[in-house]
């Protein structure tokens, strides 16, 4: 089988199971006929992928089974909400690389130009929305947790995630204050364990034990954060959530996708406003993404927009599937 033919076959396999059961054979016959006619396999594959996406989102023609529509709702809820776990690191990257960038010519009362003020405001909106999204995530998890199957034997993944989170948080809380403020140079041993490094004469080298512990804690927290979406996805896919969890899940997903959309707009707006600033004059400050981010800003904004689109499609599908499920009950 040639590469393009394989691609077409793979595209056909992306359709949902119920669709393949109904149409697969005749679609294969049609694709064979079109390919023999010399039509582009790539074009056929792209068309199939578009059709498959539509079929998955809309579920038109799916069997009228309550269980199937309930499972569809659960999957769509995951697609709508899990992008949050990708959004937060992106916000961290944005946060680390943006901000008001110095005061030019040493003026103390330097002000941002008008476009810079807009960029700064957009940045504040992004951070504000990220904080709100955190509370929504906690609320959503508490509602979801109530609906998850109780007493089910847990695998290593949830345990590993939980242990990493607890140890990570503990280490960070205990060691980070020391790690941040303790002198790190071998010339400053006397200061280890204290909250000052001001007496150090030389620039410190190396890490103190407190810093090593703090960084270990942070790494464990990152591991827990990376594992969390897999843990949630697995737990949700293994159980049938009750209607009440699906309903509140749909609401949470709607709020999430709306927040993501606003964040994507704010980040894009921030980039545009920063780019529109004039060259700073004496007494003016300047807002821009630092050189570390530079031209990658467009990719960052594109990633935000993509996540917002995925979340919105998931929310649309979840709400539609939930309504259909309720209609089937009636």
């Amino acid at each position, binding site marked *: 089988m040639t590469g393009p033919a394989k691609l077409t076959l793979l595209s056909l396999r992306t359709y949902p199971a119920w669709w393949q059961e109904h149409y697969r054979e*005749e*679609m294969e*016959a049609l694709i064979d006929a079109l390919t023999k006619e010399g039509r582009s396999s790539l074009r056929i594959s792209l068309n199939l992928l578009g*059709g498959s996406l539509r079929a998955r989102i809309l579920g038109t023609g799916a069997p009228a089974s309550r269980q199937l529509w309930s499972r569809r709702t659960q999957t769509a809820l995951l697609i709508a909400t899990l992008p949050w776990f990708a959004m937060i690191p992106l916000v961290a990257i944005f946060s680390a690389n943006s901000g008001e960038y110095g005061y030019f010519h040493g003026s103390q009362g330097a002000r941002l130009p008008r476009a810079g003020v807009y960029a700064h405001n957009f940045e504040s909106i992004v951070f504000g929305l990220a904080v709100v999204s955190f509370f929504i995530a906690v609320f959503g998890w508490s509602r979801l947790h109530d609906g998850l199957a109780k007493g089910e034997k847990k695998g290593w993944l949830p345990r590993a995630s939980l242990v990493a989170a607890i140890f990570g948080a503990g280490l960070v809380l205990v060691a980070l204050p020391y790690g941040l403020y303790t002198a790190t140079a071998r010339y400053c041993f006397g200061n280890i364990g204290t909250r000052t490094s001001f007496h150090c004469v030389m620039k410190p080298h190396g890490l103190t034990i407190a810093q090593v512990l703090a960084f270990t804690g942070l790494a464990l927290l990152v591991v827990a954060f990376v594992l969390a979406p897999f843990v949630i996805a697995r737990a949700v896919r293994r159980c049938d959530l009750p209607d009440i969890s699906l309903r509140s899940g749909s609401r949470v997903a709607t709020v999430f996708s709306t927040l993501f959309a606003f964040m994507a707009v704010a980040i894009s707006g921030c980039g545009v406003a920063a780019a529109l600033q004039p060259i700073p004059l004496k007494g003016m400050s300047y807002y821009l993404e630092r050189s570390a981010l530079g031209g990658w800003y467009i990719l960052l904004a594109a990633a935000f927009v993509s996540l917002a689109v995925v979340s919105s499609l998931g929310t649309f599908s979840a709400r539609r599937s939930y309504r259909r499920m309720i209609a089937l009950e009636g």
Partner: protein
Amino acid sequence: MAVKGWQRAQDPALLVLTSLAAGPMHGYALIKDIESIAHVTLGPGTLYGVLNRLEEQGLVEPLAAEERRRPYRLTGAGAAALRERLLVTSKVATVGLRRLGTAHA
């Protein structure tokens, strides 16, 4: 002068129903027929998306498969819906053409 992309605005569901008005057809025959009557090429994903929707709405129905190919035919409801839609389209077309004729006379 033809405007690029204008033909894409045609509704695939209308094209499929119009094509099936000639009698039962399977996927490949539908694509060829639509190409000949409207100069529009539907991809397999688009075609089966439309057939799926029309089937659910009860406007078309599948017949027994012939080897791997399954023909579809218009139902009574489908014929009525197509007639109604074409009458409206025809009325719009008549008015549009008349006005164009007046304007360009």
